[in-house]
């Protein structure tokens, strides 16, 4: 009888821990992100027809963004599971409906778990090329 009770207790504990940990590690959806008006309307100076800039945007995305956002922008990079906040889906309409300026602002200055890239990618044109690459991930 004692053994049965112990097994029951252990199984109940395991289920409780599993349930709690599942809740504890569940990722939050990102909250609203206010972008200053100045950036919202900013025009992207880098043309998508510029082959060098396109290659550059792709390489910079691979180096700086892919580990969280995934190679196709689906938010499934190897580091994504460890984040408290979901890293989003770049291929979807919600992401793609943002202006280039909004994406540039968020890439440049970051917030919370999303790092700022204004110092890691100091050249503005390079950051605009990254925005162009994010556009190419649209489905």
């Amino acid at each position: 009888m004692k053994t049965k009770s112990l097994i029951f207790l252990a199984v109940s504990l395991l289920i409780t821990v599993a349930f709690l940990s599942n809740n504890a590690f569940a990722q939050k959806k990102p909250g609203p992100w206010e972008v200053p008006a100045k950036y919202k309307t900013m025009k992207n100076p880098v043309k998508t027809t510029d082959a060098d800039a396109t290659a550059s945007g792709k390489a910079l995305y691979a180096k700086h963004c892919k580990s969280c956002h995934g190679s196709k922008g689906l938010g499934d990079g190897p580091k994504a599971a460890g984040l408290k906040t979901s890293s989003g889906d770049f291929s979807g309409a919600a992401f793609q409906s943002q202006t280039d300026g909004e994406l540039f602002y968020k890439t440049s200055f970051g917030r919370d778990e999303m790092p700022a890239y204004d110092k890691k990618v100091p050249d503005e044109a390079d950051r605009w090329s990254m925005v162009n690459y994010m556009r190419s991930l649209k489905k």
Partner: protein
Amino acid sequence: MKNKNMIFRISAIITMALMMIQAAASAQEDSLGPDNRPAKPAFESGYLIDQQTSVVPIKNTLEFAIHHRFGTVENGISDLYGIYGASNIRLGLNYSLTNNIQVGIGTTKLKKYQDVTIKYSILKQSRSLSIPVSVTFFENIGIDARDEAVFGTQYKFSQRFSYFSQLIITHRFDDMVSLQVSPSFTHYNWTDIQVQKIENEAGEEVNDTIRFDHDKIGISFGCRVKISPQTSIIAGVDLPLWVDKIREYPKPDQLSKPNISLGVEISTSTHAFQIFIASAQGILPQENMMWNNLDGSDKLLISQFMLGFNITRLWNF
């Protein structure tokens, strides 16, 4: 002598190639005018195996560097090709005071070197190639922190100092290929004296003293070839040169040997990992130029190579 001629020829070819690139670039400038922004960094971090690169991270960046060299591969599987052998390790911290100046400190296991570094980016290659190369000055001042007894009977604190000065000339050909040529000058305030037994003409065994020069001129070549956005093949050669004009003592049997290295680099947003095989364990450039594999033979042997790795981590403030 042959070696010297070869090095001068290689340097001349590189200079000519760079001049041709500049001429081609000026011809290609379109109606929008030249793009004179600095080119993207030629290398992924401030280190290229045992060499420095022209890379100075942006102002207020802290860089933490871990350098590890395993033992030589000569014992084969018995010590897992040196992995269980005697290692050398350096831990370093560098900080970018401006976009062009980086200062650093480091501590190394071998000879308990404590070192201070400064790197100054004099010239940056432009995207239009109106400036075809990056030119960077690098200085490392090392302090040998071993016990006083190591320095002989007339010890002075100044004996502990060694200096390495280098001009790093880099050209980034495209997103894939970068090359650097770096002449250097190494000075040790104090160099050891070795005593060995030799037979004189009468067949008697006598002591022979070997003295080592305090100065060494060297040249280094380094390159990177990217094979994917995050992975590159990296290679380097450090050649200590025997220059008659600065020599103090007769040429000894023990000459510092070249450091030849080949490896793979994987870089991420804030890290660079380099795993390689090299023929110098010193980590500090002055140690490699002055004292690499002094064993009385002229040839660099396969058994003198070792595995090693570098890791760098960047923080922006």
